[in-house]
């Protein structure tokens, strides 16, 4: 999405430039390339600093070169795939439940004032509980480790979704409700035709945040009785001081997260009704 103002002003003319599609695609990659380059540069520089510090050189493995070497090793040996799959499964399952619970609850507390008042105190308490504090409960309450981990992910990921959704509902133009009632909308119509389309981009923004939170929680969650997954691999890498592997796993998580986020972005574009 481009600047509001410049798009409002110049969008019509931008279609007329003489660039071939390929060239314009390349030039649209300019910005991401700049971003990636800066990240790599900062990363490399961090590694360089550490490598040249007499006390800390042992940690210099997290620099880009060893990391990509380790990443290559992980991919080439195929060791990464089961790891990725099992974590992805947990994340997606957790997000699924986060959405299934979070969106309706968010709409409810955004729309119905009393629901909001009832839920406020319990939600404030629940959402501040660290996954590490939930762990004993998860261990006691769930039959399998996987379900305990998914529970931890849900307990962390559901809040951004609930809050974003509720915030979106509260920001809906009150006139839109009036007009709909006035046209005879039932509560169901209101939900399907007015509220859902109106808040879609907020829900997706919440899900985007939830994706990040889910990955963040995955690492402590995979302390629990599992022997595969990216969080487990990170714990393992730290245990063996293999900071190259650790950084490689972080890169993998970043790539997957980026993929999930891109899906959300696409959906936001799809459901965004603001004219650009």
């Amino acid at each position: 999405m481009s600047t509001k103002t410049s798009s409002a002003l110049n969008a019509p003319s931008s279609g007329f430039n003489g660039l071939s599609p390929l060239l314009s695609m390349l030039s649209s990659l300019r910005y991401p390339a700049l971003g990636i380059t800066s990240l790599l540069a900062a990363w490399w520089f961090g590694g360089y600093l550490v490598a040249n510090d007499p006390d800390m050189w042992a940690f210099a493995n997290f620099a880009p070169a060893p990391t990509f070497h380790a990443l290559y090793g992980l991919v080439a040996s195929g060791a990464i795939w089961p790891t990725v799959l099992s974590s992805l499964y947990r994340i997606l399952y957790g997000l699924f439940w986060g959405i299934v619970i979070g969106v309706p609850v968010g709409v409810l507390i955004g729309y119905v004032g009393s629901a909001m008042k009832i839920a406020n105190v319990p939600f404030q308490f629940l959402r501040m509980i660290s996954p590490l504090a939930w762990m004993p409960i998860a261990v006691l309450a769930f039959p399998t480790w996987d379900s305990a981990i998914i529970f931890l992910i849900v307990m962390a990921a559901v809040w951004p979704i609930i809050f974003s959704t509720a915030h979106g509902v509260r920001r809906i133009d009150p006139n839109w409700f009036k007009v709909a009632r006035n046209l005879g909308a039932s509560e169901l119509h209101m939900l399907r035709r007015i509220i859902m389309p109106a808040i879609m981009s907020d829900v997706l923004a919440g899900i985007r945040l939830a994706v990040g939170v889910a990955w963040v929680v995955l690492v402590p969650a995979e302390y629990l009785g599992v022997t595969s997954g990216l969080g487990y691999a990170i714990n393992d890498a730290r245990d063996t001081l293999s900071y190259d592997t650790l950084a490689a796993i972080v890169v993998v998580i970043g790539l997957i997260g980026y993929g999930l986020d891109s899906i959300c972005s696409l959906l936001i574009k799809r459901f965004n009704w603001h004219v650009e």
Partner: protein
Amino acid sequence: MGASLSIDYVTHRFSPSAEPTLKDIDARIEPGQMTALIGRSGCGKSTLLHMLAGLLIPSEGCVRVNGHQISSPSAKWNMMFQKASLYPWMTVQENAALGLLFAGHSKREATRQVDALLDMVGLHDKKKENVQSLSGGQQQRVALARSLATNPEVLLLDEPFSALDAFTRSALQEEVPAICRERGITMVIVTHDIDEAITMADRVLVMSQNPGRIVSELPVKLPWPRRHMDVGFQTLRDELMQQFKGTDTGLSGRDAQSSQPADSKAESAA
């Protein structure tokens, strides 16, 4: 068929401590009657219309439709808002068809029905477009089609043609009452245009401001369609203009600076 409306001693304050915006409004409207409401900007016309639509509960008094007090909106008494408030994620057609969808019509049936109305308001070539790319007047016409489509018993129009050019406006000033007469719809139109009031209504209510009251009422007993140059039309216009002028000097006395030139102009116009 149309419904009767009854406004029973309505007084309204937007906050308990404020001066009343509307005061002791009392009026009855017959089924199928077409009533115009005129008054200065800010006198409370939209507020009163919101009450008739069940969108606002008066702080005193009540509003009845067919004798039943109303306290919530319904598709039976539809209001077209002063601001178009279209849904930006829908096309023109979808916006216009919304009331029919809510009433349980299938998408196809609803589309078919609104197509005729969209043709009438001159938007045949904009049906599939996003409402955000419409001009101000086009948006207003979508809102009009949307209100007409629900086929309500009571139709409340809040300055429905304010963004339209003289020709489009003039066409619709004829079409809309025709539709209402045909279907027996009770119509209330808020307008700031005295000619429009006379052209469209069976009677005209004049509101004063600070507080908003109904200060006079004029039946319009002219044949349809009404011509601006007819003598009856002109007489009524003069009479209304006098009434209207009275709302300012007599009752508020506040709007002095803007009312002074208005008087002189209005006189010359009359």
